[in-house]
Every structure is written in C-alpha cells, then in structure tokens.
C-alpha cells in the first residue's frame, strides 16, 4: 500500500510540471497552426505526396502558387485514372477521366463566406487539446508536429507536421477514437519557394468530348432555408448555406456547411427519393455519410467526423412550419 501511495505521489510530482506548462503548449500549438494556415496559402511549392485511407494508397502530384493575391493550385493523381483538381481562387474544377466529367464549383462570392477564410482558429482549444513540440523529419525536411486531441466524441483527432523553416504542411493525419490513423497525406518530395516548372498549373486533360457540370450556387439566408437543425453539435457552427443547381435540368438542392474550424460537415437536401427509405450511415474513405428521407426530400449528411456526429445532426433536421 505504502509503495502504491509513494508511486502515486511520484507520478503526481512528475506530472505537475507538464500540467503547469500545458497552456503554454496550447498557445504554442495554436501559433504553429496559424503558421501552417498561412504557409499553405502563401507559399509556392510543388511536390509528390502519398495519400492513405484504410487500405488504399494513392500517389499524387501537387503544384501551388499565390500570385497577385490569387491562389492557384493543381493536383493530379498519379495512380489509376489521372483525376485532376484545379483551383483558382474560389473556383474549383474537378476532372474525372473515366466519366469524362468536369465538375466546376465556384463560390458565388468570397465576401459571402468570410468564415471560410483561415480565421476562427481561436476557438479550437475549446474542442481540442492542442500539443506541440515533437520534432522529426518529413520528406527530408526538419519538421515540427502539432497534435490535436478531441475533447469530446463529436470529432476526430488530428496530427500535423510542418516544415520548421517555411511553415508548409508536410504531413497530416486524421486520428480515430483509439488513436488509429483514419487518413493521412504526406509529402515524399517537395520543393518550396522558387518558381514552378513551366506548365505545372496547366490542366492536363483534353476538353474534347468532356461533359461539363457547372454548379451554380446562390447564398441562402437562414430565414429562407425552410429547414431547421434542432440538434446542433457542440462547437460546430454554420459557415455557409446555399442553393445549388448542377445544371438546367437538375433539381435545385440546398447545401449547408457546419464547421468547428477544423472538421466540417455538409448537409445536402434535395427533392427526390422514395418515401419509406430507411435512414442509414455508411463510410466513404474517412468520411461518414448519413442518409435519411424526409417526406419527398432526400437528406444526405457527410463529414470527416465520427458516424455518431453525422447521425446526430441528421436526426435533428426538420421542415420548418411557417
């Protein structure tokens, strides 16, 4: 018994300095996160990275630059069909060669979505225990780690590794409830700064015979949504709400985005589906997807959050009665 008490005391003594410095760690971690956010936006870089999700491993190439305040980037899958994402400012183009499909998403106005800008990191410590300090090497570069452990069951953990010199995010992992890696991406080779190779940001696909799906979105005010969210998840707030239409013949649907500053959840509500469909949860890579039929509407909730979270948010969705 005495030994036990002694051990306990010793543990307590050993832990005290750690506990005492935790706030400093958190602050330090937050500062690192700000650096990462800034670096990812402002730096010019190109390289190759590996993406893992479950048993799946993919290699892709990325090039990114910021010129005249416009962020431009191109990602191309090197394994399998050459899928491609091109982004210029607020416009995202995704090309799927097998379907010969080009999906274009453009945010109606940046001004309309101020919360999409890298801000609001200040609330993160409320929902995540942030720790930093570990040093290591990623893609041959000296790196520092920031670990975010969720404080509740509504979100996953994250681990970020940034280049100590530039602040570029070199490696990121999404961590499950038991600390297992659900998804990760890591540079294997990267060139930071300087200028990009000629044509690094040019689309690689041939537009011949490609079906273009230009998605039109208009901002929606809360009052005009016609739907209410009765079960809000702690720390998640609405960051965008819009009407969207994929083409002239497509039905108009609604897209609402919730975020805690790190994780995000999308809710899609569209006319269609058949009454009597049972509600269900499924997984798509690291994402959980919940689907439910409400009268003549199909509701799909997806996000890189535990299944519990998409289900909880989905179950609280109701038509608003005027």
């Amino acid at each position, binding site marked *: 018994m005495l030994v036990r008490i002694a051990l306990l005391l010793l543990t307590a003594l050993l832990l005290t300095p750690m506990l005492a410095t935790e706030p400093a760690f958190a602050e330090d971690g937050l500062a690192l996160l700000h650096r990462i956010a800034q670096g990812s936006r402002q730096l010019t870089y190109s390289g190759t990275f590996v993406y893992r999700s479950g048993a799946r491993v993919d290699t892709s190439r990325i090039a990114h630059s910021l010129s005249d305040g416009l962020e431009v980037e191109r990602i191309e899958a090197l394994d399998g069909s050459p899928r491609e994402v091109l982004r210029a400012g607020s416009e995202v183009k995704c090309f799927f060669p097998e379907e010969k499909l080009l999906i274009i998403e453009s945010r109606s106005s940046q001004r309309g979505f101020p919360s999409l800008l890298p801000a609001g990191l200040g609330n993160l410590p409320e929902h995540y225990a942030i720790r930093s300090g570990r040093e290591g090497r990623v893609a041959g570069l000296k790196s520092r780690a920031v670990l975010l452990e969720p404080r509740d069951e509504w979100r996953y953990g994250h681990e970020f590794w940034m280049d100590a010199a530039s602040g570029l995010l070199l490696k990121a992992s999404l961590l499950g409830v038991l600390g297992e890696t659900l998804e990760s991406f890591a540079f294997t080779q990267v060139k930071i700064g300087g200028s990009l190779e000629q044509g690094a940001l040019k689309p690689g696909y041939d537009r011949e015979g490609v079906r273009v799906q230009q998605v039109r979105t208009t901002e929606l005010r809360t009052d005009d949504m016609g739907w209410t969210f009765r079960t809000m998840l702690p720390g998640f707030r609405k960051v965008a709400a819009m009407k969207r239409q994929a083409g002239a013949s497509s039905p108009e649907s609604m897209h609402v*985005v919730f975020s805690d500053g790190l994780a995000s959840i999308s809710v899609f509500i569209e006319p269609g589906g058949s009454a009597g469909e049972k509600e269900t949860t*499924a997984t*798509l*890579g690291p994402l959980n997807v919940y689907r439910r039929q409400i009268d003549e509407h199909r509701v799909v909730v997806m996000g890189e959050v535990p299944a519990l979270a998409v289900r909880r948010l989905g179950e609280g969705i109701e038509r608003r009665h005027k």
Partner: protein
Amino acid sequence: MKTRISALMDGELEQHEVGETLQALRRSEELRAEWRDGQLIGAALRGERKLDLDITARVMSAIDMEPTVLAPAPRRPAAWQRPALALAASAAGVAVVAWLALAPGGQEGVPVAAGNLAGVKQGPVVAQTQSTPRLQEYLVAHQAYAPSGVIGGAARNIRTVAVAGEGR
C-alpha cells in the same frame, strides 16, 4: 491484456483499469486490431446494419442514382451466415462501398456486388432517365466549401482526388 480488452468491451472493467487499458490500446497496433475485430464480431452478432453490406449497398445506390434498379431483392442471408458476411464486408471494406457509390454511370455496380455477396443471381437492371446529384458531386462540393482553416487551400482538395477515385 487480451482478456482486459474483451472485459473493456463488455464494460466489466474498474475505472482505473479502463484508463490503463486505453493507454495500452493507444500504444499497440496489435491490441487495436484485437479491439477492432472484437467490435466487428460484436456488431455482427448484434446484427448491426452498418456492417451489413447489402443494406449499405442499397443505401449508397439510393444516394448515388435515381435511376431505379429493378432487381430481385437480395435474399437475406441466414442468421448463421451474418457474422461471416459482416466480416467479409468489412475486409472488403470502404473500397467496396465507395466503388458502389462512385461507379461510373452507377447503374450496373450495385446489384452485381450486392447480388454476388448475397449469393443471388443478378437480376435485370432497368434504369430510368431521371438523374440526381450523385455522391461524387456531393464530395466535390463538400471539399470545396470546407473551411480552409488550418489545412489551407491545397490539402482539402486532396481528398476529392483520392477518395473520388476509390475502388477504380
């Protein structure tokens, strides 16, 4: 430690043991595998639907395509087959589900996969012309509007490329 883990699953551990066991889980991949298997078996025994592939397939198909598939309903597996089926589904894992969801055209994939796994011959597939947004489009939209926050612009689109190509 393995007995500890099954005790943890059954909620039979003392408070202090819970902490220790969780710590151990964090440290050891082998133990985590043990935990996952246990969870899967438990879920399968309870007949939880998330692991039931034909249900998942049906739902994903409903999300994926309005073109209604007219196929004989897959026969429900006999109760004794369920755990095995659930484990098979989880082994095939996310890729199967995602493939079902994002199969090009989307019309043939679902009944074939669901049918084969449930041991049923594939039925006729009749597709209607009405189309609705598919999961792929949702995924693109989700990633495009996810706050750039920490990860910044670039990294959030990585998932679009990688996950959307799943199962190809």
